[in-house]
């Protein structure tokens, strides 16, 4: 039954403190590195020191003889063990980037393992390398893979709707270029894998993850096991931010070492190694083209994106991610997308917080502001004129059952005093607006299923079994709130069993913003099932029709007659401890009925106000006004936390974050030199929640986990653009880049961005 705005709710919408708060503030929460299994060994990986080289010889004999060493593995131990289609877990005859996994050691302690690595002899024959997009695309560039003689890997070319017609109907077509650097996510909990493969029939993998099934499937495939022979344990997870969606090479290496040594093996990243293990986002170049009519109707949108994939194409999904975002914000006639992966001799790339959409948006929304400028329009008016509306079907076939984008724009324009500020601020101050949209869950080739179970013990205690990992976003609290709402009890009275793929029902996990929406729907269904069973028993005991019963305060009561009621424990006892012996257990699952894509979309708009120091070039973000349509708000406290975190991470990526890479080597692999905002740098955030009630969401809820960062990045970037007077063609907008922009705009250089990008190597 679809949710309605006037549904009477007891729990949903509260400021609910985390159900696991006590454990987390008191040091009781157990993370992977806190686990010690009997006989556990410590593993270390030997990594390539070369950008591109042939391995002539590996000699591990001295390492094997070192006392305390229990296993040494190289390519020879698992020549067929592949990490991705063309990439062995341990390099064979060629290495293609600094940091590539070549060999590994398991020893009694970490110091011995480190010492053993030093004893492994490797002879390289260096090969010519290409470590930047420009080098890799140059005529006669060194070739990384024989199958891609031009170093161009997978590509995607797609038109939705009719972009040719859209451009033909436009009065003007604006083009811009943008570039984002290699960035890294600096998770609180560094990458760690503890593998116990001492029984070759079962691989136990203790590791932080965004979802067990991908880990089970990929590890099972690699080691020739059935999926159920891989158990993934992930009790607490120190952040994920797209970085833990699928296993990484160290998971395979830990398993390989454990199988060989017959003991559990833990591999944990060091601070600098983390920058290799993570597979962060790579250098990316964007070309935007937009066709508009002279009165500001956006007709066609185009983006052409070149990605630095690194030494291998590990994660081709990144290719299509930006394409959908182009479809979901404005009502264009047609959308054109071209994307390509380029191989370089650098670490293979994955994704960063906000996916590729956030990074793109920092350029794309500046580009749209540029379009407005060319038309002589206020960008807020251009956004409002073209923003999608409820019921809109975008060119890619997505239908927005609920959509509050226009209300979000109006809210931030109003609350920020935009009309009094835009174009009227003193010199060196800027204000910018950005928009975004994000899907709640998404179906590709496979399903998009989450399942859940709930049991009601004889003492009335409700236990929820869920496979959704809580990486900090508060999913378990949200699931308890949903369960409590259905069952008429309190979230903190519900127990959660999670974090072990041997126990919990199937759930793809916490990515593609599917937690609240998809798992939430599954939990709701499971609890409705349990509720119906409780109602059947109570109806018999109280001798009334089941539809006359209501659930509240942990009791089942006859509507309008509180005297006639039973507690959960009385109902559960009646059924279990009787000759009937019935145990109340609810089950449910949710999978979008659509064959492809998403059912629900969240939307948002943000305005950022910044100040640029004309002497140092430093940017200060003074305030951010955020308005988001996330459907029904389930936990207001957690929603605010999500928004805070995404403003933080968004401004961080736009203003600070950059891996400095020279000859394929990351020069700043540390949390000091890879700059992130500290407590004193955060702006005030003003929240407006536009609660559209989505017909498909649990109680009308949609995602809030990634939509906002895309918007934050675009608003902050547009504000800097406004302060310096021209589109900033590159991220991060560090002081020297901002100074350079100020100088260029003061000179009256009209084509700042282009000239700048061309000067880059």
């Amino acid at each position, binding site marked *: 039954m679809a949710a309605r705005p006037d549904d009477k709710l007891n729990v949903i919408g509260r400021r609910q403190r985390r159900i696991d708060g006590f454990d987390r503030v008191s*040091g009781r*929460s157990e993370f992977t590195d806190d686990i010690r299994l009997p006989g556990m060994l410590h593993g270390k990986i030997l990594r390539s020191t070369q950008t591109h080289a042939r391995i002539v010889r590996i000699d591990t004999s001295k390492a094997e003889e070192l006392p305390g060493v229990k296993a040494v593995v190289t390519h020879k131990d698992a020549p067929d063990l592949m990490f991705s289609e063309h990439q062995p877990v341990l390099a064979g005859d060629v290495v293609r980037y600094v940091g590539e996994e070549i060999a590994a050691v398991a020893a009694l302690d970490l110091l011995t393992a480190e010492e053993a690595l030093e004893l492994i002899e490797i002879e390289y024959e260096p090969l010519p390398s290409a470590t930047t997009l420009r080098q890799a695309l140059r005529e006669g560039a060194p070739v990384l893979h024989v199958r891609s003689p031009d170093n161009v890997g997978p590509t995607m070319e797609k038109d939705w709707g009719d972009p040719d017609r859209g451009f033909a109907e436009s009065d003007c077509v604006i083009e811009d270029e943008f570039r984002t650097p290699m960035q890294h996510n600096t998770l609180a909990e560094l990458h760690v894998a503890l593998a116990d493969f001492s029984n070759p029939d079962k691989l136990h993998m203790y590791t932080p993850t965004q979802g067990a099934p991908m880990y089970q499937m990929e590890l099972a495939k690699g080691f020739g096991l059935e999926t159920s022979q891989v158990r993934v344990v992930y009790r607490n997870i120190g952040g994920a931010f797209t970085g833990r969606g699928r296993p990484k090479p160290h998971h395979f290496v830990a398993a390989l070492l454990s199988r060989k040594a017959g003991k559990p093996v833990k591999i944990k990243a060091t601070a600098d190694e983390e920058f290799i293990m993570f597979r962060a986002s790579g250098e990316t170049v964007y070309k935007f083209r937009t066709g508009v009519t002279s009165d500001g109707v956006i007709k066609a949108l185009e983006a052409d994106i070149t990605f630095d994939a690194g030494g291998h194409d590990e994660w081709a999904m990144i290719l299509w991610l930006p394409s959908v975002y182009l479809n979901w914000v404005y009502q264009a006639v047609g959308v054109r997308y071209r994307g390509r992966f380029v191989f370089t001799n650098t670490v293979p790339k994955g994704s960063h917080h906000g996916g590729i959409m956030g990074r793109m948006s920092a350029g794309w929304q500046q580009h749209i502001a540029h379009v407005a400028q060319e038309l002589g329009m206020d960008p807020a008016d251009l956004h409002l004129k073209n923003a999608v509306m409820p019921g809109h079907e975008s060119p890619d076939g997505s239908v927005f059952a609920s959509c509050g984008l226009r209300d979000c724009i109006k809210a931030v324009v109003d609350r920020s005093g935009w009309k009094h500020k835009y174009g009227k601020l003193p010199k060196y101050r800027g204000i910018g607006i950005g928009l975004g949209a994000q899907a709640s869950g998404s179906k590709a080739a496979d399903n998009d299923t989450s399942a859940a179970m709930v049991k009601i013990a004889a003492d009335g205690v409700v236990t929820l079994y869920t496979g959704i990992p809580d990486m900090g976003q508060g999913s378990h609290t949200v699931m308890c709130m949903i369960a409590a709402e259905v069952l008429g009890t309190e979230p903190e009275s519900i127990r959660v069993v999670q974090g072990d793929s041997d126990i919990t029902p199937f759930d793809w996990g916490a990515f593609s913003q599917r937690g609240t929406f998809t798992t939430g729907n599954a939990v709701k269904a499971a609890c409705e099932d349990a509720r119906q069973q409780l109602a059947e028993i109570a109806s018999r005991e109280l001798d009334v029709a089941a539809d006359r019963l209501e659930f509240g305060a942990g009791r089942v009561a006859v509507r309008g007659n509180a005297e006639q009621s039973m507690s959960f424990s009385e109902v559960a006892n009646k059924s279990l401890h009787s000759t009937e012996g019935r145990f109340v257990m609810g089950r449910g699952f949710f999978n979008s009925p659509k064959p492809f894509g998403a059912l629900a979309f969240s939307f948002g708009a943000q305005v950022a106000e910044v100040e640029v120091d004309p002497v140092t070039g430093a940017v200060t973000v003074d305030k951010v006004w955020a308005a988001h349509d996330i459907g029904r708000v389930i936990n207001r406290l957690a929603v605010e936390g999500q928004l805070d975190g995404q403003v933080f991470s968004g401004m961080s990526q736009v203003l600070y974050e950059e891996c400095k890479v020279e000859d394929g080597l990351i020069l700043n692999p540390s949390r000091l030199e890879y700059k992130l905002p500290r407590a004193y740098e955060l702006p005030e955030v003003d929240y407006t929640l536009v609660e559209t009630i989505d017909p498909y969401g649990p109680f009308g809820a949609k995602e809030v986990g990634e939509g906002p960062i895309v918007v934050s990045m675009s608003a902050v970037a547009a504000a800097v653009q406004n302060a310096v007077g021209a589109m900033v063609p590159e991220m991060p907008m560090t002081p020297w880049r901002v100074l350079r922009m100020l100088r260029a705009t003061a000179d009256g250089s009209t084509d700042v961005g282009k000239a700048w990008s061309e000067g880059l190597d």
Partner: protein
Amino acid sequence: MQRQVMTLTVNGDRHEVLVSPRQTLLDVLRGQLGLTGTKEGCATGTCGVCTVNNAEGEALLSCLTPALEWDGEAVTTIEGLERDGRLAPIQQAFVEYGAVQCGFCTPGVIMSAQGLLNASEQPGEEQINDGMAGVLCRCTGHIKVKEAIRNVGRFRDAPAK
């Protein structure tokens, strides 16, 4: 490298431990003593996740402290903040104000905040900014962390929850 016996008082309990010169205070807390509430983040002093309090109640990066230099000293870790099974005011404030998300940095962030509160019962905005500059929280953007510190007074002498 010769291992040595050292004494260390943690949360009021005195321990004798065998320590190698390469081990840090963090290694001893997590390894020898099994007090895994203190987390190891970067282990290079850049993230503040390993923060504990020294005998004077000041924040200390345990990952940069050679254990043997701390022979005979006392430290307080996240496990030592509770009194009679009741969370300390700063711990309660973190829960109530939503200053906890993934929880990995939380022990270090709380011990930094506690260090700040040990020096000043009601730190001002600038003191909070300075005192919390050494820890990095990836999830919360520090916004609710600061809110919790500002409002810690509400939880002093408050009835246990």
